[in-house]
């Protein structure tokens, strides 16, 4: 199978999806977090009646509006790509994607578009309370929209609640609640939205720091910092906890991804956590072509503890997952490939028997396919049957390792940063801390870097799978002309870059104008 596939088509399709998803993700986290920050600010305005809070709310609402307008519908392009570039995948996932995405579309349309109009056009036209409710509903709606796409993504990382139908080649949902409340989906949702809250909080404290550096709108800036600093601190701590829970789940459900981003090649009991390391850019031929990790700072037993809540637990490394480890019940990758090939052959024989109208053989094969033992021992490894080389099961180690460590490092940096923002603001010393204010301003890009790194860990780390263990990326791609994908890749690059430039320039202009006085247009 893998020999028949144009790998440049796979690479260009992957590059295009990565480009569009990463650009889309520039806009989304700010929408998720800023919507709640604006809702908090407006709640304070309604509670206190202080017009300064209304001015603060309206300023951040304008920036929210710019980001929302420029980012809206950029995610639809991903759906275009599913149908064109990833048709086998789209067919294979069946209802699992259809249902959550349909719910997302309906919720996004009704909740966001209806209440966003009240939020922007409704000042002085509807009651304060109704306006506030609309602002909260926009925030909740935006975050619930993210839920459905993350549920779909969670299913791809840990497929549950479905049954593969060999007649249609589609996965059919047998339990919606298993899909919705899959631990992977729940962790992914909580970790993703809380990281969006963190990014938006860094954005607000960074812009507020700029106002303080310019000695402009000081009360506005300090009040914004208190709201965003508090929200940011709580969100970042929550992000750390949800990330920890997510990593624990990955350790059991996607152990290769876990081993890659932790830089663990040889598993053992009581594994240390690699807090820092430098990955060689040359694959080491003596170590299964894995790049050597040179400079290491390790914390004893911590990885075993974080993965299994036991400092002496066994954590498998890349080599254990490739070669197998009977002592801990790990099958070798070669054995999984053989079992996957058996599952594919049964599917092929079933189709051929149906075509020849040999109903007796077809019936026997269908029963074999539906047998829980066959499902557990063979179909579970269906995706491995597409692969020939066990090395193709290892994701890009340097990219996974660095993305993960950069994300975690920046996350902990933000906890300290928000703590200091609150300390200096409540002590009334923030104006005088000019170096710290500059640090806040220049921390804004770090939030975007950490956010993108998070997706790199999730999506690069799960390669070669598009659906974990069931469908590898090479088998998911449509047989189309690679040049068509190249053309649209560059078209997207131009369009999205233009949108990003528009976002930055309109926002910068609006920030320079600053918060408006009541009645000012």
């Amino acid at each position, binding site marked *: *199978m893998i020999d*028949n596939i144009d790998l440049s088509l796979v690479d260009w399709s992957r590059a295009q999806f990565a480009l569009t998803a990463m650009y889309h993700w520039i806009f989304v986290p700010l929408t998720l977090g800023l919507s709640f920050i604006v809702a908090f600010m407006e709640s304070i305005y309604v509670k206190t009646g202080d017009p300064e809070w209304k001015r603060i709310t309206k300023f951040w609402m*304008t920036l929210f*509006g*710019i980001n929302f*307008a*420029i980012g*809206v*519908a*950029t995610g*639809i*392009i991903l759906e*275009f*790509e599913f*149908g*064109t*570039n990833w*048709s*086998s995948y*789209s*067919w*294979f996932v069946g209802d699992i994607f259809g249902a959550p995405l349909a719910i997302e579309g309906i919720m996004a349309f009704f909740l966001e578009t209806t209440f966003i*109009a*009240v939020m*922007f*056009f*409704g000042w002085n*036209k*509807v009651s304060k309370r109704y306006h506030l409710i609309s602002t909260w509903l926009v925030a909740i709606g935006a975050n619930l929209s993210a839920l459905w796409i993350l549920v779909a993504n969670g299913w791809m990382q840990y497929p549950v609640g479905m049954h593969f139908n*060999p*007649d*249609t*080649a*589609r996965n059919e949902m047998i339990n919606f609640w298993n899909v919705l409340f899959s631990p992977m989906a729940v962790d992914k949702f909580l970790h993703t939205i809380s990281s969006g809250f963190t990014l938006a909080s860094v954005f607000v404290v960074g812009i507020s720091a700029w106002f303080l550096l310019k000695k402009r709108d000081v009360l506005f800036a300090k009040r914004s910092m208190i709201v965003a600093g508090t929200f940011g601190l709580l969100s970042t701590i929550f992000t750390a906890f949800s990330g920890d829970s997510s990593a624990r789940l990955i350790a059991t459900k996607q152990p290769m991804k876990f081993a890659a981003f932790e830089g663990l090649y040889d598993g053992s009991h009581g594994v240390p956590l690699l807090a820092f390391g430098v990955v060689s850019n040359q694959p080491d031929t003596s170590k299964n072509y894995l790049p050597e990790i040179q400079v290491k700072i390790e914390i004893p037993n911590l990885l075993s503890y974080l993965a299994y809540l036991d400092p002496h637990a066994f954590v498998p490394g890349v080599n254990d997952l490739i070669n197998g480890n009977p002592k801990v019940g790990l099958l070798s990758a070669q054995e999984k490939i053989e079992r996957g090939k058996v599952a*594919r*052959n049964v*599917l*092929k024989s079933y*189709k051929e028997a149906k075509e020849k109208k040999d109903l007796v053989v077809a019936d026997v094969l269908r029963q074999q396919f539906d047998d829980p033992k066959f499902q557990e021992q063979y179909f579970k490894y269906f995706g491995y049957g597409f692969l020939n080389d066990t090395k193709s099961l290892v994701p890009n180690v340097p990219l996974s390792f660095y993305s993960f460590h950069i994300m975690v490092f920046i996350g902990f940096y933000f906890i300290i940063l928000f703590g200091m923002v609150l300390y200096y603001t409540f002590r009334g010393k923030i104006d005088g801390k000019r170096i710290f204010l500059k640090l806040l301003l220049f921390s804004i890009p770090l939030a975007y870097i950490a956010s993108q790194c998070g997706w790199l860990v999730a999506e690069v780390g799960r390669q070669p799978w598009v659906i974990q263990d069931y469908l590898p990326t090479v*088998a998911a791609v*449509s*047989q*189309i002309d690679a040049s*068509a994908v190249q*053309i*649209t890749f560059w*078209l997207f690059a131009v*369009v999205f870059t233009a*949108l990003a430039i*528009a976002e930055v320039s*309109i926002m910068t202009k*609006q920030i320079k104008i600053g918060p408006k006085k009541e009645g000012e*247009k």
Partner: protein
Amino acid sequence: MKNKLCERMKGILLKIFYLYYDGFRNMTLGKKLWIIILIKLFIMFAILKLFFFHDFLKSRFETNKERSNYVIDQLTK
């Protein structure tokens, strides 16, 4: 009673209409954003979707059975 209800409904609909009408009319920055949104949607649907992003399976096969057979062939070849 029915007339009163009709009047009330009419009042609500008018309020909603004027919320949007006045909102759009008094937009300053919003006009620029709407232009960006419309250009973006035009590029996405009138150029990209129309010329580059045909649904692969829908455009090549008429029935779901044909699509299933094609995907099974791809999965087993």
